[in-house]
């Protein structure tokens, strides 16, 4: 394989990897704060993609404009899924820790419900959004860079930076960090922990609202697309270090480049096997992930 093909693969891997990182941000945030593995994470991304698609198909809205709707919509969905479906788990025994398995089963239920509702409503057909940006590229050193992917990549960096800044400097961000560190101490300091959880879950989903809309110009949509994104997000989060925002981006980049380069040598399906190999190798070397604190 020549150098040109390889650099092209690396660049594409970085772009899609950044997007993987952006998609995984919410999963990492939610786990970092609530210790809940949201199995329905990918389903919420799928929901955002359908939302963006519908606005394009019915109103002719450009997917980038539909962000104005998908982000608040996903925030509200996340806020209420936590408030209505997940919070009873925390209220059941106020003082005791929620076991990860029960939260995982519960969100797996949410995944089944969301995916099947969408399947019922839209059928299994593959849908795609045709907008000009899909085919636009800019050239850097003679290599074409797809504009839609580049925008997704940049959005991931910006969102990660903004989220870190907000968590560090806002009142709500401080309450979220305090709750993540010590739930009981946060309650005893007067923090409304359930509200913090609602906002955290809402935020984690709102980020998916953004990436759903950024993905549709170059990603076709099916009701089961969520699962593969969900699994990738899980890999990314564990690779980068659970709860770490820069770790999420780093893990995404690593996975993206690895997948992209590996698929130059083998078929895309076997490349996925190699991704799991990478995953296991890194966890053997650094059990807490790349940026994680043990």
């Amino acid at each position, binding site marked *: 394989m020549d150098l040109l093909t390889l650099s092209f693969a690396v660049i594409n891997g970085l772009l899609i990897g950044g997007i993987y990182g952006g998609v995984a941000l919410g999963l990492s945030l939610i786990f970092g704060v609530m210790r809940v593995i949201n199995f329905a994470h990918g389903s919420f991304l799928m929901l955002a993609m359908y939302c963006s698609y519908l606005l394009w198909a019915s109103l002719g809205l450009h997917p980038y404009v539909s962000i104005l709707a998908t982000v608040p919509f996903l925030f509200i969905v996340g806020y209420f899924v936590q408030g209505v479906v997940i919070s009873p788990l925390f209220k059941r*025994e*106020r*003082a*005791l820790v929620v076991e990860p398995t029960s939260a995982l089963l519960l969100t797996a239920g949410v995944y089944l419900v969301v995916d099947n509702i969408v399947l019922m409503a839209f059928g299994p057909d593959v849908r795609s959004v045709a907008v000009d940006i899909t085919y636009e590229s800019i050239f850097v050193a003679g290599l074409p860079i797809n504009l839609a992917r580049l925008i997704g990549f940049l959005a991931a960096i910006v969102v990660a930076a903004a989220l870190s800044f907000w968590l560090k400097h806002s009142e709500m961000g*401080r*309450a979220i*960090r*305090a709750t993540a*560190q*010590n739930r*009981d*101490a*946060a*309650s*005893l*300091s*007067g*923090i*409304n*922990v*359930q509200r913090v959880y609602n906002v955290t879950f809402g935020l984690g989903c709102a980020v998916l609202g953004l990436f759903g809309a950024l993905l549709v110009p170059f990603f076709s949509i099916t009701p089961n697309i969520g699962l593969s994104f969900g699994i990738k997000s899980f890999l990314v989060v564990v690779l980068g270090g659970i709860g770490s925002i820069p770790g999420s981006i780093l893990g995404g980049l690593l996975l993206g480049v690895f997948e992209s380069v590996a698929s130059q040598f083998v078929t895309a399906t076997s490349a996925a096997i190699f991704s799991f190999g990478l995953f296991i190798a890194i966890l053997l070397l650094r059990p807490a992930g790349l940026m994680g604190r043990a």
Partner: protein
Amino acid sequence: MSTPALEVRDLWSGYGDQDVLRGIDLVLEPRTIVALIGANGAGKSTLLRTLSGLLRPHRGEAKLYGESIFCLPPHKVVERGFVQSPEGKQLFLGMSIRENLLVGAQNKRARARRDQTLEEVFELFPILRERQALNASTLSGGQQQMVAVGRALMALPRVLALDEPSLGLAPIMVDRLFESIAKIKERDLTILIIEQNVFQVLEMADYGYVLENGVMTLNGTGAELLADDHLRASYLGL
């Protein structure tokens, strides 16, 4: 008699179906220091956790200045004015001292007065002003305890509960802490303090209760308790 600052009647509580507390009665007159004494595992922390809303009580009643705080969620209890500094400090170790203190001021009332209260906490514990930008994990045990008490004060409590504030502190730090607590009392609030330093706390307290196996077995003024034979034998080793 005036309305008690805190009034607990026939409180039953525990973990799951198990009762740890079996019919607790407790009255705190306004602007007093009340000591709660008891061996390890007697249920002292369980009582505070229940009053704070972290544990759901099985039965009973708890009133703060005549208003029920029974079964409220923890942040509401804090808003009403019952605030505890929990056993083992429970600081947010990844945050600066200043941030730990600021977290304490959540409710509207406390938020509005936040800068003033912070200033008062710094006056009470000057070392915290110097170190405010440092991570809470860099402090000694005694200083961490100051942060924990300061954080509770930031919520503007009407009743402040301190769960073993002197745990793990050097004797000199314990003395200083007790001086600070006496100063806090001048702030027009009521203090419920759980302590293993029985002699020291009863000298300071206006009133005391003894909790044994989830039941209050003894109560009286500090002087009365210090003169009690059973208490002297069990807790002072005299």
